[in-house]
């Protein structure tokens, strides 16, 4: 079974600064996908960024980028130029390749607070 661990329950960052959220996972699969989701107070889960395990290049989406270390089973999220609207709960998630069922395995989450 796959597990996802987020070791930072809470993080805070000053507006315009950079912050990195950590995530490690455990799997015996070779092909899989990794995701970061954001859950603001509205409770709606929003996809931030996704990474295919067979791609060595780290994914980037505007101010969001990941550091994917497959051998170490590590998948951290870097948020640059933090904005007040980035305040939310962030979840790291894993999905097996080509698995029907859309079964995401989530970590416990990291609360990120952006301060002005």
């Amino acid at each position: 079974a796959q597990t996802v661990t987020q070791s930072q329950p809470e993080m805070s960052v000053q507006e315009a600064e950079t912050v990195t959220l950590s995530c490690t996972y455990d799997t015996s699969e070779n092909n899989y996908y990794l995701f970061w989701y954001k859950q603001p107070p509205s409770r709606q889960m929003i996809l931030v960024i996704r990474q295919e395990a067979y791609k060595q290049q780290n994914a980037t989406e505007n101010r969001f980028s990941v550091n994917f270390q497959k051998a170490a089973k590590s998948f951290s999220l870097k948020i640059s130029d933090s904005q007040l609207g980035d305040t939310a709960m962030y979840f790291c998630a894993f999905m097996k390749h080509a698995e029907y069922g859309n079964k995401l395995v989530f970590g416990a989450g990291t609360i990120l607070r952006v301060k002005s």
Partner: protein
Amino acid sequence: DAGVTQSPTHLIKTRGQQVTLRCSPISGHKSVSWYQQVLGQGPQFIFQYYEKEERGRGNFPDRFSARQFPNYSSELNVNALLLGDSALYLCASSLGTVPGFEKLFFGSGTQLSVL
């Protein structure tokens, strides 16, 4: 276009009762997934349905069941409610044509409280 809609937004039930939660996917999406998010934890996968057939089931007891209708909307039913069923129930929709990597679109959830 409307996003994923869930109803009701909040619900209070007592132990032993039964509850039905509803989800309407984004227009054109044929797949619906259900997740349970207990306070302080990440969501846990319950079910996925595609074209009215169950494609995936998480580690939940038989008290949990679901179905998908011809218009692709879905219902999640929970029987014999326990206090531990108190959680936010999230619905997610996707096209359903590419297993594993499709972008999931989530609704804002139904907050169920069991007293």
